[in-house]
Structures are given as C-alpha cells and as structure tokens.
C-alpha cells in the first residue's frame, strides 16, 4: 500500500473514532439531560453545558485529521505513511474511549445537578477531569506530527 493511502486511513480513523466517542458520550449525557429536564425544565441551560462536554473529543479528532491532511502528499513512501498513521492513533483511540467515558460521567453529573442545582460547577469539574486524557492524547498527536 502506498504511504499516502496509509496516512489517509490514519486521518480518517482519527476523525471517525474520536467522533464516535463523542457521539456516544453526548448521547449518554443527552438521555440523562432529557430525563432531568422533563422534571426540571429550568435547569436546561446548566445541563446543556454538561451535555456538550463530551463533544470536544470529536473536535480534537477532526483537528488532528486536518493537520494530517495538510501533511499528506502524493507519492509518500510507506514509512512516512505509517508515521502519520501512528501520530493519529493516540487521538483516535483515546478520543473514542474518553468520549464514551466522559459521557457517562456527564450523565452522572447531570443527575447530581438535577437533585442539587447548585452543584453544577462541581459536576462540570468532575466531567472535565476525564477530558484531561483526551487533551493529553491530542497533545501527543500534535507533538508527534511536528516530528514528521
């Protein structure tokens, strides 16, 4: 396989997997949000912030995919292609898993906010803790890309 194709697969996987992670995460949080909003419509604004949090992995995955695309040239050799593929993997895998995990945390935080509206700040912090690892993966991917 040509290096170009390998790199394109890498970029594609990065956007796709991280996007899937975010989609599942936002879905999980969204279900919880719908439940709480049905009882307490006033909280919708606060809850929407929590629901949006697992959405960032998808953006990060997209970002890395774009950065890789900028580096792809026609007629790359296989090792260059695999390098780009490898640089995409931290964000792709961590994006998938952390998106799902963050969604679950967000759902729990949404339930907590439903019972104690004043605790939404704490819920946001809890949810943001999970995102740290997506951010580290993003950084790793970016730093790896700068070395290619």
């Amino acid at each position, binding site marked *: 396989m040509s290096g170009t194709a390998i790199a394109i697969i890498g970029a594609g996987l990065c956007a796709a997997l991280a996007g899937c992670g975010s989609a599942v995460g936002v879905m999980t949080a969204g279900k919880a949000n719908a439940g709480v909003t049905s009882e307490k419509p006033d909280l919708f604004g606060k809850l929407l*912030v929590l629901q949006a949090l697992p959405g960032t992995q998808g953006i990060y995955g997209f970002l890395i995919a774009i950065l890789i695309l900028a580096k792809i040239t026609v007629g790359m050799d296989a090792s260059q292609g695999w390098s780009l593929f490898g640089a995409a993997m931290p964000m792709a895998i961590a994006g998938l898993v952390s998106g799902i995990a963050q969604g679950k945390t967000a759902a729990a935080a949404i339930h907590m906010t439903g019972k104690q509206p004043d605790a939404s700040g704490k819920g946001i912090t809890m949810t943001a803790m999970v995102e740290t690892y997506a951010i580290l993966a993003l*950084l790793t991917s*970016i730093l790896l890309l700068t070395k290619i």
Partner: protein
Amino acid sequence: MIASIKYMSILCMKEDRDRLVASLQKCGEVMVEDTDESVRNAASSADMLRRMEKLREGIKPFVPKKPLFAEIPQVEEHEFETVSESDLQKASEMERLLADIAIKKAADAADNELIRQLKPWANLNIPLEELGDSEYASFILGTVPLKRLEGFKNAVISGVMGMDIISDDEKTAYILLSVIKNESLAELAEYGFERITLPPLKGNVRDTIADLEVRTEKSNKEMAAVREKLAVLAAEGNTADLLYEQYRADYERETVPAAETNETVLIEGWVPEDRIEIAEKAIRQATEVCDIIYRDPLPGESVPTSLRSGKAVSQFESITNMFSVPSYGGTDPNKVMAPWYWIIFGLMMCDVGYGALMIVFGVLLKKLMKPKGTINQIINVILLSSVTSIIAGVLFGSYFGEVWNPILFSPLKETTKMLIFTMLIGVAHIFTGLIVKIIENIRAGKVFDAVFDQISWMLIIAGFGLIFIPAVKTIGMIIAVIGGIIVLFTAGRAKKNIFGKAVGGLVALYGISGYFSDILSYSRILALGLATGVVGMVMNMLAGMVQGPWWGYMISIVIYVVGHIFNLALGLLSAYVHDCRLQYIEFYSKFYEGNGRLFKAFSLEPKLINIKQQNGGN
C-alpha cells in the same frame, strides 16, 4: 475581601411586625436566620400564590412566545409593593375564561364521544326510546366480527329471531336483533356477539347526531371567541407574572422565621458591618418602638460569607462560589484567582477575531437581556477576557484562525515552544497559589510550615526547570536536591514515631508526580488554543473552496458566519470549563479550602420581572 459580619436581634411589637419585615425585605441587607425558637407562620398568601401559579400555567399556551434573549420586563418599585385591584380583576377574568374553556372542552369531549358511539347506528330507522323490551319482543343492539357473520346469521335464523345489519366497517358488523322477550342470547355469544347499550336518548339516531354536531360546532365557535379574548388579555402586559411575584414576596414576608410572645416578635439574623447603617435606617422607618442588639459571631457558629471585591474582581466571584464559598474568617481567593482566570481564558481563546466577537456578543446580550446575577457575571467575565484574548491573539498572530505576523511565534508552527510556554504559565500559576499559602502560614506564625511545605516544593520545581537550561544545569540540580531533602526530612514531622516520620517523608516526596501532572495539565491551554485556531482555519478553507462564481461568494459568507460563530461558542464553552478546572484543581488545591456559606439577604428577588432600581445598580 470578606466583610466583617454581626449577628443582629430585632425585638419589636407584634403590630409592627408586618411593616418591619416589609422594610427589611426592601432594603435587602439582612440574612434572617432560622433559630431554635423561631416559628414560621402559616401564610395567608399561600392560596393566592398557588392560584397565580395555576393561572400562569394555564395561560402559558396563550402568551405570545418571547424571542430568545428577551429582556425581562420592568416595573417601578411602588408598583411592585402593592397589588393593584385592576391586576387582580384581570387575573380573575383570565381565570374565569380558563375555567370556561375547560368546561366547554369537557362538554365537547362528551359530545364527540357520543357522536362516535352513535355513528355506526346512523341508519337505524326506529327511534332510540323504542329499543329494549316491548310487550313481547326485545330490540337489541350489538356487534359481531365480520369473519363470523355467516355463522351468526345461521344461528339467528335457526333460533327464530330477526336481524338487520345496520352498518359495517372493516372488522365489525353493527346489528339490530329482534328477539322474543327474555330469549337467551347465550348461543349467539359464541359467534362473538356483543351487546351494546347506548346512552338513554330519544328520537332518530341520524337527527340526534346532527343535533350534536350542530352543538359542538357552536361550542367550538364560542370557544374560539373565548380563546381569542384570553389571548388578548394574556398578551397585554404580564399581569400573571407580576401578581405571582408579588404574592411570592408576600409569602416570604409572612413565613419569615421569627420568635413570638403574646406581644412581641424577635427576628434574628446576620448583617455585614458596613451595611448596619442601611439596615438600621430601614428598621427605624418601619417602627420607632423596637430594640436592636448586635453581637460578634460566636466561635464555632456557622457564619455566612459576604464578599466585597472591586467591580472587576467581583465578576469572578461566581466561579469561586461554584467550587466552594470562602469561609468566614478564611481567605477570599478571588483577588488572586481573577487575574489568572482572565489571563488563562485569553490564552485559551487566543484569537483577535474571536476576541472582537466576544465583545460584540457580550455587549449585545447585555443590551438585549439586561441579565442579572450569575449570568450577568459570566457575560462580564467574557467581556473582560476579550481583552486578553485579543492581546494573546496579537502575540501569537491568530486572526479568525489565520496566522498573520505573530509577535512571539505561531503555536501551530512551533508547537513545542508553545507547550513550554504553557507549562511556564502553569508553574507561575501554581507558584502564586503556593505563595498565597506561604503568606497565610507566616501570618499564622507558622514560618516553618511555609518553608517545609511550600518553599521546599517551589525549590524542587524551579530546580527541575533549571536542569533543562544547559548553562545552569548543575545549579538547578542542587536546588532541586535541597528542596527534595527538605521534603524528605520534614514532611513526616507530624507523625509520632521515627518510622512514621521516615515513611511520611518518602510518601510526601512521591507527591512530586502530583505537581508534575498539575503542570502538565496546563498543556490544555495549548490544546484549546490550537483547537479554536485550526477549526477556524478549516472554516476559512471550506468557505474558500466554494468561492468563484457570485453565488459561491454568497455561500462562503454563510459558511464564514455560521462556522465562526459555532467555533466561537465551542471555544467559549471549553475555555470557561477548562479555565475553571485549572483554578479548582491545580490552583485552589495549593491553598484554598472554602466550605463557607454564602450570605443571602432576605430581599425582593423577583425572577420573572425586574424591579427598577432607584440607585442605578449594575
């Protein structure tokens, strides 16, 4: 700064209670406390409050939909204080119309149900009153499933009975059965015959249906008229909201906790020392005959915290309060947190264009919504941070995602440089936290604690940092080792035996991983800044791809506008959340405890309407 607070006891005559409570509520400077002796009176306004709640719920479908970000309607203070007779009349008129609609709806539903029941029997040619038993025969209505109709017919014939099929639909035949009186119908039931009893009505079915239809149509017309009337009433002004808030304020006045004797009332609560004068003036206005006693908070008492900061810093208070309210007698971290929050927010947005958009949207939101409370503070924080966003944007050369003449360097091209820069910001932020703790310790006379727990770590971190600079590599190593030795030998000092001391030191030294993960955590500044920049760039790229023909430019404008607003919203959310996180987890863990209780004055706080402030306000 945390305002010094006094405990206030107001003793007054029972007949002055209402005026006193109203005055306290209006001045809004006293936090009334529920003591062991105080009782909450049953409120006479509770019924009215419930009525207004129900009315608001009822007219909801008739109130014209408010635009997004609509301004909250305002009323004058004197308008709010007394419930106006005309408002009450209007409310009762709306209630009457609602009840009217409800009755009409119920009657309509009953009529429609009847029509539905009668419809299959429209072709029945005997009057309804003649159904049932006559002298020798019975006329019975019933249904049979179409599938079993043949069998049923045979059974009817063999049983010497008569039947007419009045009508049928897809599944069922509607049948008039004429049988000899008291004949058993058990055999017919085997074919799925089900007897149907119509409500006691008279006359021809067709005519009855026609009558009912005329009636529902008329009632529908009437209902439309009533609805229109209600819609007109509901659309003009906000009577229901105003009344609701008036009665809620009334309810709060009536249920304010107070201890009572036969003649006197005792109301107790907290008042910030700098507001005593205002509170006292309000009390004296209400009554001349009363006794006010102040005392300092007792040790161990749960004292509420009233924060006093400058105009800029106070906008950041809600961020700290979301984490934990400063405790009375503790430090108010807002003064040190606010500048850092401001700087880090700017670095996370890091774009001149988005900074400008933040100003535009911030000002627009404030103009349109006239927000209050936390939302207002958050918008102010965004407005303030637009300055740092623009500065960071100029320094790192980011304009709506495009790189242009960076003064320092472009994070996208020199990512490692930016990574180091963010880590340095992190070290500075964490050092600020440690320095606050050092000052606290020294003030408390615990100089050694400051050296052992804070300075030692600062030495370790600074030393490690210097190791990366070749010229001062050895010095850095020495500094780090000194810091490490201090931690190793002093962190276990609280332990009793020598073994505990040794283990304590080793365990504490392991905390170095905590400090490094804290510093590493600041790399999110880079990540978020890059995310905003690159997504913005992608939007520009997408817009550029469609340019060419004139309609291409039109589409590209749409992509520019929608794309950048989407990216801005996402960037703001991320920056807000992650800036909070850096303050809460990396910064506050170094010195701040909180666990306080926020001072919440007994005051007029309508949510659905705004009361016009005489003295300006923010």
